[in-house]
Protein backbone atom coordinates (compact mmCIF):
# COMPACT_ATOMS: atom_id res chain seq x y z
CA UNK A 1 0.00 0.00 0.00
CA UNK A 2 1.29 3.48 -0.90
CA UNK A 3 2.66 5.69 1.83
CA UNK A 4 0.17 8.01 3.50
CA UNK A 5 1.53 11.19 1.92
CA UNK A 6 1.37 9.63 -1.52
CA UNK A 7 -2.25 8.62 -0.91
CA UNK A 8 -2.99 12.15 0.21
CA UNK A 9 -1.33 13.63 -2.87
CA UNK A 10 -3.63 11.56 -5.06
CA UNK A 11 -6.59 12.84 -3.06
CA UNK A 12 -5.80 16.51 -3.75
CA UNK A 13 -9.23 18.04 -4.42
CA UNK A 14 -7.77 20.95 -6.44
CA UNK A 15 -4.66 19.84 -8.30
CA UNK A 16 -2.47 22.52 -9.84
CA UNK A 17 -3.91 21.81 -13.29
CA UNK A 18 -7.51 22.34 -12.19
CA UNK A 19 -8.98 24.53 -14.97
CA UNK A 20 -10.67 26.84 -12.47
CA UNK A 21 -7.47 27.67 -10.59
CA UNK A 22 -4.55 26.76 -12.86
CA UNK A 23 -1.71 29.25 -13.18
CA UNK A 24 -2.45 31.87 -15.82
CA UNK A 25 -2.59 35.66 -16.14
CA UNK A 26 -4.94 37.39 -13.70
CA UNK A 27 -8.60 37.44 -14.64
CA UNK A 28 -10.59 40.66 -14.68
CA UNK A 29 -11.70 40.49 -11.03
CA UNK A 30 -8.19 39.79 -9.72
CA UNK A 31 -6.68 42.51 -11.86
CA UNK A 32 -9.25 45.03 -10.64
CA UNK A 33 -8.58 44.15 -7.00
CA UNK A 34 -4.84 44.57 -7.48
CA UNK A 35 -5.40 47.99 -9.03
CA UNK A 36 -7.63 48.98 -6.13
CA UNK A 37 -4.92 48.02 -3.64
CA UNK A 38 -2.17 49.81 -5.53
CA UNK A 39 -4.19 52.97 -5.93
CA UNK A 40 -4.87 53.06 -2.19
CA UNK A 41 -1.20 53.26 -1.20
CA UNK A 42 0.09 55.96 1.06
CA UNK A 43 3.58 57.42 1.22
CA UNK A 44 5.55 56.43 4.32
CA UNK A 45 8.89 55.45 5.81
CA UNK A 46 11.81 57.59 4.86
CA UNK A 47 13.87 57.24 8.06
CA UNK A 48 14.00 53.46 7.99
CA UNK A 49 17.63 52.67 7.26
CA UNK A 50 19.09 54.61 10.14
CA UNK A 51 16.65 53.24 12.71
CA UNK A 52 17.26 49.65 11.64
CA UNK A 53 21.00 50.04 11.80
CA UNK A 54 20.71 51.45 15.30
CA UNK A 55 18.52 48.57 16.42
CA UNK A 56 20.88 45.98 14.98
CA UNK A 57 23.87 47.47 16.76
CA UNK A 58 21.94 47.58 20.02
CA UNK A 59 20.91 43.95 19.76
CA UNK A 60 24.40 42.73 18.89
CA UNK A 61 25.87 44.67 21.77
CA UNK A 62 23.32 43.24 24.15
CA UNK A 63 24.05 39.70 23.04
CA UNK A 64 27.81 40.14 23.13
CA UNK A 65 27.49 40.81 26.84
CA UNK A 66 25.88 37.42 27.32
CA UNK A 67 28.39 35.30 25.48
CA UNK A 68 31.71 33.98 26.59
CA UNK A 69 35.12 33.75 24.92
CA UNK A 70 37.35 31.20 23.12
CA UNK A 71 36.84 27.50 23.16
CA UNK A 72 38.22 24.01 23.08
CA UNK A 73 35.73 21.15 23.47
CA UNK A 74 32.51 20.93 21.45
CA UNK A 75 29.35 21.12 23.51
CA UNK A 76 27.59 18.29 21.72
CA UNK A 77 26.06 16.35 24.59
CA UNK A 78 22.28 16.34 24.60
CA UNK A 79 20.78 17.65 27.82
CA UNK A 80 19.09 14.98 29.87
CA UNK A 81 15.52 15.51 30.98
CA UNK A 82 15.09 17.70 34.04
CA UNK A 83 14.49 15.69 37.18
CA UNK A 84 12.60 17.02 40.21
CA UNK A 85 14.79 17.45 43.28
CA UNK A 86 14.44 14.56 45.67
CA UNK A 87 12.29 15.44 48.65
CA UNK A 88 11.02 18.68 47.20
CA UNK A 89 7.39 19.51 47.85
CA UNK A 90 5.18 19.93 44.79
CA UNK A 91 3.19 23.16 44.81
CA UNK A 92 -0.20 23.04 43.14
CA UNK A 93 -0.68 25.27 40.13
CA UNK A 94 -3.67 26.81 41.84
CA UNK A 95 -1.53 27.88 44.77
CA UNK A 96 1.21 29.15 42.51
CA UNK A 97 -1.31 31.17 40.51
CA UNK A 98 -2.49 32.76 43.76
CA UNK A 99 1.11 33.63 44.64
CA UNK A 100 1.58 35.12 41.19
CA UNK A 101 -1.49 37.30 41.62
CA UNK A 102 -0.11 38.64 44.89
CA UNK A 103 3.33 39.20 43.38
CA UNK A 104 1.79 41.13 40.47
CA UNK A 105 0.02 43.65 42.66
CA UNK A 106 2.62 46.37 42.02
CA UNK A 107 2.67 45.68 38.26
CA UNK A 108 6.41 45.18 38.15
CA UNK A 109 8.19 44.00 36.04
CA UNK A 110 6.40 45.30 32.98
CA UNK A 111 5.49 43.67 29.71
CA UNK A 112 8.14 43.94 26.95
CA UNK A 113 7.69 43.28 23.30
CA UNK A 114 10.33 40.83 22.07
CA UNK A 115 11.85 37.78 23.61
CA UNK A 116 15.07 36.35 24.95
CA UNK A 117 15.17 32.59 24.72
CA UNK A 118 17.73 29.87 25.14
CA UNK A 119 16.65 26.67 23.44
CA UNK A 120 17.91 23.20 22.79
CA UNK A 121 16.34 21.12 20.05
CA UNK A 122 17.01 17.83 18.33
CA UNK A 123 18.06 17.66 14.71
CA UNK A 124 17.00 14.27 13.43
CA UNK A 125 17.48 12.13 10.39
CA UNK A 126 14.75 9.72 9.35
CA UNK A 127 14.38 6.35 7.70
CA UNK A 128 15.99 2.94 8.19
CA UNK A 129 19.31 3.26 9.95
CA UNK A 130 18.53 6.79 11.12
CA UNK A 131 21.47 8.34 12.95
CA UNK A 132 21.23 9.40 16.54
CA UNK A 133 19.94 12.96 16.64
CA UNK A 134 22.13 15.86 17.59
CA UNK A 135 21.20 18.66 19.95
CA UNK A 136 21.34 22.22 18.75
CA UNK A 137 21.62 24.91 21.41
CA UNK A 138 20.63 28.43 20.40
CA UNK A 139 20.03 31.78 21.98
CA UNK A 140 17.53 34.10 20.35
CA UNK A 141 16.89 37.75 21.06
CA UNK A 142 14.12 39.76 19.46
CA UNK A 143 13.92 43.44 20.30
CA UNK A 144 11.37 45.99 19.13
CA UNK A 145 11.92 49.69 18.80
CA UNK A 146 9.53 52.54 19.30
CA UNK A 147 9.16 53.08 15.54
CA UNK A 148 7.71 49.59 15.11
CA UNK A 149 10.82 48.00 13.62
CA UNK A 150 12.48 45.01 15.21
CA UNK A 151 15.62 42.91 15.05
CA UNK A 152 16.14 39.21 15.49
CA UNK A 153 19.45 37.72 16.42
CA UNK A 154 20.08 33.99 16.78
CA UNK A 155 23.44 32.62 17.87
CA UNK A 156 24.77 29.14 18.56
CA UNK A 157 25.60 28.92 22.24
CA UNK A 158 25.13 26.57 25.15
CA UNK A 159 25.22 28.20 28.57
CA UNK A 160 26.05 24.84 30.15
CA UNK A 161 29.40 24.95 28.30
CA UNK A 162 30.42 28.59 28.04
CA UNK A 163 33.13 29.30 25.53
CA UNK A 164 33.14 25.83 24.00
CA UNK A 165 32.41 25.09 20.35
CA UNK A 166 28.76 24.57 19.61
CA UNK A 167 27.17 22.21 17.14
CA UNK A 168 24.87 23.51 14.44
CA UNK A 169 23.21 22.18 11.31
CA UNK A 170 23.15 25.57 9.68
CA UNK A 171 23.50 25.12 5.94
CA UNK A 172 22.97 21.36 6.01
CA UNK A 173 25.41 18.94 7.62
CA UNK A 174 26.08 19.24 11.34
CA UNK A 175 29.33 20.99 12.23
CA UNK A 176 30.77 22.89 15.12
CA UNK A 177 31.09 26.63 15.26
CA UNK A 178 32.49 29.00 17.82
CA UNK A 179 30.39 29.87 20.80
CA UNK A 180 28.35 32.90 19.80
CA UNK A 181 28.46 32.16 16.07
CA UNK A 182 25.69 34.20 14.49
CA UNK A 183 23.14 31.92 12.82
CA UNK A 184 20.73 34.66 11.91
CA UNK A 185 20.72 38.40 12.16
CA UNK A 186 17.75 40.02 10.59
CA UNK A 187 16.20 43.43 10.78
CA UNK A 188 12.57 43.98 10.02
CA UNK A 189 11.09 47.28 8.95
CA UNK A 190 8.30 48.89 10.97
CA UNK A 191 5.19 46.74 10.92
CA UNK A 192 1.99 46.51 12.85
CA UNK A 193 -0.72 43.98 13.50
CA UNK A 194 -3.75 43.90 15.73
CA UNK A 195 -3.76 40.10 15.80
CA UNK A 196 -1.93 37.80 18.21
CA UNK A 197 0.94 37.18 18.62
CA UNK A 198 1.90 40.68 17.43
CA UNK A 199 -0.95 42.35 19.34
CA UNK A 200 -0.19 43.24 22.95
CA UNK A 201 -1.28 40.44 25.28
CA UNK A 202 -3.82 41.54 27.92
CA UNK A 203 -3.37 40.88 31.63
CA UNK A 204 -7.00 40.11 32.38
CA UNK A 205 -7.44 36.32 32.70
CA UNK A 206 -10.49 36.09 30.45
CA UNK A 207 -9.05 38.41 27.82
CA UNK A 208 -5.68 36.65 27.85
CA UNK A 209 -7.46 33.33 27.39
CA UNK A 210 -9.34 34.78 24.41
CA UNK A 211 -6.01 36.05 23.04
CA UNK A 212 -4.51 32.59 23.37
CA UNK A 213 -7.58 31.05 21.79
CA UNK A 214 -7.11 33.34 18.84
CA UNK A 215 -3.51 32.23 18.67
CA UNK A 216 -4.64 28.62 18.70
CA UNK A 217 -5.82 27.99 15.18
CA UNK A 218 -6.37 24.31 15.80
CA UNK A 219 -9.84 23.97 17.23
CA UNK A 220 -10.62 23.38 20.89
CA UNK A 221 -7.94 24.48 23.32
CA UNK A 222 -6.63 21.31 24.90
CA UNK A 223 -3.74 21.43 27.36
CA UNK A 224 -1.11 20.53 24.70
CA UNK A 225 -2.46 23.30 22.52
CA UNK A 226 -2.40 25.69 25.45
CA UNK A 227 1.26 24.82 25.98
CA UNK A 228 1.92 25.34 22.26
CA UNK A 229 0.34 28.78 22.21
CA UNK A 230 2.08 29.67 25.47
CA UNK A 231 5.35 28.94 23.69
CA UNK A 232 4.29 31.08 20.75
CA UNK A 233 3.31 33.91 23.08
CA UNK A 234 6.62 33.77 24.95
CA UNK A 235 8.56 33.63 21.69
CA UNK A 236 7.12 37.07 20.93
CA UNK A 237 6.66 38.77 24.30
CA UNK A 238 8.47 38.98 27.60
CA UNK A 239 5.54 38.99 29.98
CA UNK A 240 5.20 41.41 32.84
CA UNK A 241 4.11 40.38 36.32
CA UNK A 242 0.41 40.89 35.60
CA UNK A 243 0.44 38.95 32.32
CA UNK A 244 2.41 36.16 34.01
CA UNK A 245 -0.14 35.99 36.81
CA UNK A 246 -2.99 35.77 34.32
CA UNK A 247 -1.18 33.06 32.38
CA UNK A 248 -0.48 31.13 35.59
CA UNK A 249 -4.21 31.20 36.36
CA UNK A 250 -5.04 29.90 32.89
CA UNK A 251 -2.48 27.12 33.27
CA UNK A 252 -3.90 26.30 36.70
CA UNK A 253 -7.31 25.83 35.10
CA UNK A 254 -5.94 23.52 32.39
CA UNK A 255 -6.49 19.81 32.79
CA UNK A 256 -3.75 17.25 33.27
CA UNK A 257 -0.79 19.36 34.42
CA UNK A 258 0.53 17.44 37.41
CA UNK A 259 2.86 19.08 39.97
CA UNK A 260 6.04 17.03 40.42
CA UNK A 261 8.17 19.25 42.64
CA UNK A 262 11.13 21.56 42.32
CA UNK A 263 13.70 21.49 39.52
CA UNK A 264 16.81 23.47 38.70
CA UNK A 265 16.55 24.49 35.09
CA UNK A 266 19.38 24.65 32.59
CA UNK A 267 20.05 28.26 33.41
CA UNK A 268 20.45 27.37 37.08
CA UNK A 269 17.09 28.76 38.17
CA UNK A 270 14.84 27.07 40.68
CA UNK A 271 11.33 26.39 39.47
CA UNK A 272 8.24 24.35 40.16
CA UNK A 273 7.65 21.69 37.52
CA UNK A 274 4.34 20.48 36.11
CA UNK A 275 4.12 17.48 33.84
CA UNK A 276 1.65 16.62 31.09
CA UNK A 277 1.85 13.11 29.62
CA UNK A 278 1.12 12.54 25.96
CA UNK A 279 1.16 9.44 23.79
CA UNK A 280 4.88 9.29 23.08
CA UNK A 281 6.16 12.41 24.78
CA UNK A 282 5.99 14.25 28.06
CA UNK A 283 5.85 17.99 28.51
CA UNK A 284 7.34 19.66 31.56
CA UNK A 285 6.35 23.22 32.32
CA UNK A 286 8.57 25.11 34.75
CA UNK A 287 7.29 28.14 36.61
CA UNK A 288 9.01 30.61 38.86
CA UNK A 289 7.89 29.56 42.37
CA UNK A 290 7.37 33.16 43.53
CA UNK A 291 6.03 35.00 40.50
CA UNK A 292 4.44 32.23 38.45
CA UNK A 293 6.40 33.39 35.39
CA UNK A 294 7.00 30.62 32.87
CA UNK A 295 10.71 29.83 32.98
CA UNK A 296 10.81 26.91 30.60
CA UNK A 297 9.07 24.17 28.73
CA UNK A 298 10.60 20.81 27.95
CA UNK A 299 9.36 18.00 25.71
CA UNK A 300 10.89 14.58 26.25
CA UNK A 301 10.31 11.39 24.29
CA UNK A 302 8.84 8.63 26.42
CA UNK A 303 8.97 6.01 23.68
CA UNK A 304 11.68 5.01 21.25
CA UNK A 305 11.24 6.37 17.72
CA UNK A 306 13.65 4.20 15.73
CA UNK A 307 12.56 5.82 12.48
CA UNK A 308 14.21 8.99 13.76
CA UNK A 309 17.03 7.43 15.76
CA UNK A 310 15.34 8.69 18.91
CA UNK A 311 15.29 6.86 22.22
CA UNK A 312 12.95 7.25 25.16
CA UNK A 313 14.42 9.88 27.46
CA UNK A 314 15.78 12.10 24.66
CA UNK A 315 14.80 15.71 25.12
CA UNK A 316 13.11 16.78 21.93
CA UNK A 317 12.88 20.46 22.69
CA UNK A 318 13.64 22.73 25.58
CA UNK A 319 13.08 26.45 25.80
CA UNK A 320 14.15 28.69 28.66
CA UNK A 321 12.80 32.23 28.62
CA UNK A 322 14.64 35.13 30.19
CA UNK A 323 14.04 38.82 30.51
Amino acid at each position, binding site marked *: *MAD*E*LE*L*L*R*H*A*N*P*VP*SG*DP*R*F*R*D*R*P*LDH*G*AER*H*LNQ*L*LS*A*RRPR*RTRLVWSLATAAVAAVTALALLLAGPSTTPAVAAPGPLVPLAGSTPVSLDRLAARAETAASDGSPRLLQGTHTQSW*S*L*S*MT*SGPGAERPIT*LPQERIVRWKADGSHTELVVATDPRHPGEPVITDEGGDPRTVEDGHVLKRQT*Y*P*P*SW*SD*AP*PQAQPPHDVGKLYAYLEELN*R*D*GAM*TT*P*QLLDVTT*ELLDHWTLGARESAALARILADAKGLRPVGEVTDRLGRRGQAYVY*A*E*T*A*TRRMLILDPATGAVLGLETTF*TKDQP*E*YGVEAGDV*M*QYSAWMR
Partner: protein
Amino acid sequence: MSNDEIFAAAYREHYWAVSRYVARRLDGRTSEVEEVVAEVFTVAWRRRSDLPANALPWLYGVARNCLSNAIRGYGRRRRLLDKLGHDEAARGSQIVDSPDSEPPGAWVHDALARLSPADREVLRLTAWEELGVDEVAVVLGCGSRAAAMRLHRARRRLRAEIDRMRICAAPGAETPRRDTPEAHGHG
Protein backbone atom coordinates in the same frame (compact mmCIF):
# COMPACT_ATOMS: atom_id res chain seq x y z
CA MET B 1 11.84 47.64 -6.65
CA SER B 2 9.58 49.40 -4.18
CA ASN B 3 7.43 47.47 -1.70
CA ASP B 4 4.42 48.16 -3.90
CA GLU B 5 6.13 46.74 -6.97
CA ILE B 6 7.30 43.69 -5.05
CA PHE B 7 3.77 43.17 -3.76
CA ALA B 8 2.28 43.51 -7.25
CA ALA B 9 4.75 40.97 -8.63
CA ALA B 10 3.94 38.52 -5.82
CA TYR B 11 0.23 39.05 -6.40
CA ARG B 12 0.53 38.24 -10.09
CA GLU B 13 2.82 35.29 -9.52
CA HIS B 14 0.93 33.64 -6.69
CA TYR B 15 -2.71 34.64 -7.11
CA TRP B 16 -3.73 31.26 -8.49
CA ALA B 17 -1.62 29.25 -6.06
CA VAL B 18 -3.29 31.08 -3.17
CA SER B 19 -6.66 30.45 -4.83
CA ARG B 20 -5.92 26.73 -4.98
CA TYR B 21 -4.85 26.76 -1.33
CA VAL B 22 -8.15 28.35 -0.31
CA ALA B 23 -10.22 26.20 -2.67
CA ARG B 24 -8.74 23.02 -1.19
CA ARG B 25 -10.05 24.12 2.18
CA LEU B 26 -13.45 25.30 0.98
CA ASP B 27 -14.18 22.41 -1.36
CA GLY B 28 -13.55 24.58 -4.39
CA ARG B 29 -16.64 26.80 -4.18
CA THR B 30 -15.52 29.44 -6.61
CA SER B 31 -17.49 32.41 -5.34
CA GLU B 32 -16.29 31.87 -1.74
CA VAL B 33 -12.74 31.27 -2.90
CA GLU B 34 -12.53 34.56 -4.75
CA GLU B 35 -13.88 36.45 -1.76
CA VAL B 36 -11.44 34.89 0.69
CA VAL B 37 -8.49 35.32 -1.67
CA ALA B 38 -9.36 39.01 -2.02
CA GLU B 39 -9.23 39.25 1.75
CA VAL B 40 -5.88 37.43 1.84
CA PHE B 41 -4.28 39.92 -0.52
CA THR B 42 -5.85 42.86 1.26
CA VAL B 43 -4.22 41.72 4.51
CA ALA B 44 -0.98 40.98 2.65
CA TRP B 45 -1.09 44.48 1.18
CA ARG B 46 -1.32 46.04 4.62
CA ARG B 47 1.65 43.96 5.70
CA ARG B 48 3.58 44.26 2.43
CA SER B 49 6.65 45.60 4.21
CA ASP B 50 6.96 42.13 5.81
CA LEU B 51 6.71 40.26 2.50
CA PRO B 52 9.75 37.95 2.30
CA ALA B 53 11.65 37.02 -0.85
CA ASN B 54 10.01 33.59 -0.86
CA ALA B 55 6.52 35.03 -0.69
CA LEU B 56 4.29 32.02 -1.27
CA PRO B 57 4.58 30.26 2.13
CA TRP B 58 4.08 33.63 3.80
CA LEU B 59 0.95 34.22 1.71
CA TYR B 60 -0.31 30.77 2.68
CA GLY B 61 0.19 31.78 6.30
CA VAL B 62 -1.92 34.90 5.73
CA ALA B 63 -4.53 32.79 3.93
CA ARG B 64 -4.61 30.36 6.82
CA ASN B 65 -5.39 33.16 9.23
CA CYS B 66 -8.03 34.60 6.92
CA LEU B 67 -9.75 31.25 6.60
CA SER B 68 -9.55 30.81 10.33
CA ASN B 69 -10.96 34.28 10.97
CA ALA B 70 -13.68 33.75 8.39
CA ILE B 71 -14.76 30.55 10.05
CA ARG B 72 -14.58 32.11 13.50
CA GLY B 73 -16.89 34.93 12.76
CA TYR B 74 -15.49 37.82 10.82
CA GLY B 75 -18.27 38.29 8.34
CA ARG B 76 -18.86 34.95 6.78
CA ARG B 77 -19.27 32.91 9.92
CA ARG B 78 -22.73 31.58 9.47
CA ARG B 79 -22.52 30.99 5.76
CA LEU B 80 -19.20 29.20 6.06
CA LEU B 81 -20.24 27.08 8.98
CA ASP B 82 -23.38 26.11 7.13
CA LYS B 83 -21.37 25.21 4.09
CA LEU B 84 -18.80 23.29 6.07
CA GLY B 85 -21.54 21.33 7.81
CA HIS B 86 -23.12 20.70 4.46
CA ASP B 87 -19.86 19.52 2.98
CA GLU B 88 -19.23 17.16 5.86
CA ALA B 89 -22.59 15.56 5.21
CA ALA B 90 -21.98 15.46 1.48
CA ARG B 91 -18.55 13.92 1.95
CA GLY B 92 -19.95 11.30 4.26
CA SER B 93 -22.44 10.23 1.66
CA GLN B 94 -19.65 9.65 -0.81
CA ILE B 95 -17.70 7.21 1.31
CA VAL B 96 -18.26 3.94 -0.47
CA ASP B 97 -14.80 2.53 -1.05
CA SER B 98 -12.67 0.58 1.33
CA PRO B 99 -9.02 1.55 1.60
CA ASP B 100 -8.14 -1.38 -0.62
CA SER B 101 -10.10 -0.10 -3.59
CA GLU B 102 -9.25 2.70 -6.00
CA PRO B 103 -9.45 5.63 -6.33
CA PRO B 104 -8.57 6.50 -2.76
CA GLY B 105 -9.72 10.13 -2.66
CA ALA B 106 -12.90 9.90 -0.64
CA TRP B 107 -11.72 7.60 2.13
CA VAL B 108 -8.38 9.38 2.40
CA HIS B 109 -10.36 12.57 3.01
CA ASP B 110 -12.36 10.66 5.60
CA ALA B 111 -9.17 9.49 7.34
CA LEU B 112 -7.85 13.05 7.20
CA ALA B 113 -11.07 14.42 8.68
CA ARG B 114 -10.54 12.27 11.77
CA LEU B 115 -7.32 14.10 12.62
CA SER B 116 -6.99 17.35 14.53
CA PRO B 117 -7.03 20.58 12.47
CA ALA B 118 -3.33 21.04 13.19
CA ASP B 119 -2.46 17.59 11.89
CA ARG B 120 -4.64 18.08 8.84
CA GLU B 121 -3.00 21.35 7.94
CA VAL B 122 0.59 20.16 8.16
CA LEU B 123 -0.29 17.15 5.99
CA ARG B 124 -2.16 19.20 3.42
CA LEU B 125 0.66 21.74 3.18
CA THR B 126 3.10 18.92 2.51
CA ALA B 127 1.00 16.81 0.17
CA TRP B 128 -1.17 19.36 -1.62
CA GLU B 129 0.88 22.56 -1.55
CA GLU B 130 4.04 20.45 -1.86
CA LEU B 131 5.94 22.58 0.63
CA GLY B 132 9.20 21.56 2.22
CA VAL B 133 9.58 21.56 5.97
CA ASP B 134 11.16 25.02 6.06
CA GLU B 135 8.25 26.44 4.10
CA VAL B 136 5.70 24.64 6.26
CA ALA B 137 7.39 26.27 9.23
CA VAL B 138 6.81 29.71 7.69
CA VAL B 139 3.11 28.99 7.16
CA LEU B 140 2.64 27.64 10.67
CA GLY B 141 4.79 30.30 12.29
CA CYS B 142 7.05 27.80 14.01
CA GLY B 143 10.63 26.58 13.70
CA SER B 144 11.69 24.05 11.08
CA ARG B 145 12.33 21.35 13.61
CA ALA B 146 8.95 21.87 15.22
CA ALA B 147 7.37 21.65 11.76
CA ALA B 148 9.26 18.43 11.03
CA MET B 149 8.08 16.97 14.30
CA ARG B 150 4.48 18.03 13.67
CA LEU B 151 4.63 16.41 10.25
CA HIS B 152 6.10 13.26 11.69
CA ARG B 153 3.34 13.00 14.26
CA ALA B 154 0.60 13.85 11.78
CA ARG B 155 1.84 11.23 9.30
CA ARG B 156 1.86 8.64 12.03
CA ARG B 157 -1.70 9.51 13.03
CA LEU B 158 -2.93 9.50 9.43
CA ARG B 159 -1.31 6.13 8.92
CA ALA B 160 -3.04 4.86 12.07
CA GLU B 161 -6.41 6.12 10.82
CA ILE B 162 -5.87 4.49 7.44
CA ASP B 163 -4.89 1.23 9.10
CA ARG B 164 -7.92 1.45 11.37
CA MET B 165 -10.21 1.95 8.39
CA ARG B 166 -8.68 -1.08 6.74
CA ILE B 167 -9.47 -3.15 9.79
CA CYS B 168 -12.98 -1.73 10.02
CA ALA B 169 -13.78 -2.30 6.33
CA ALA B 170 -15.49 -5.67 6.51
CA PRO B 171 -15.23 -7.75 3.33
CA GLY B 172 -18.29 -7.24 1.15
CA ALA B 173 -19.55 -4.35 3.23
CA GLU B 174 -20.71 -1.33 1.31
CA THR B 175 -18.92 1.15 3.55
CA PRO B 176 -16.10 1.00 6.05
CA ARG B 177 -17.55 1.12 9.56
CA ARG B 178 -17.51 4.65 10.90
CA ASP B 179 -16.25 4.57 14.44
CA THR B 180 -16.51 7.59 16.65
CA PRO B 181 -13.18 9.37 16.25
CA GLU B 182 -10.99 8.95 19.26
CA ALA B 183 -9.59 11.86 21.17
CA HIS B 184 -6.10 12.34 19.83
CA GLY B 185 -3.19 12.97 22.13
CA HIS B 186 -0.40 15.19 21.00
CA GLY B 187 2.39 12.80 21.67
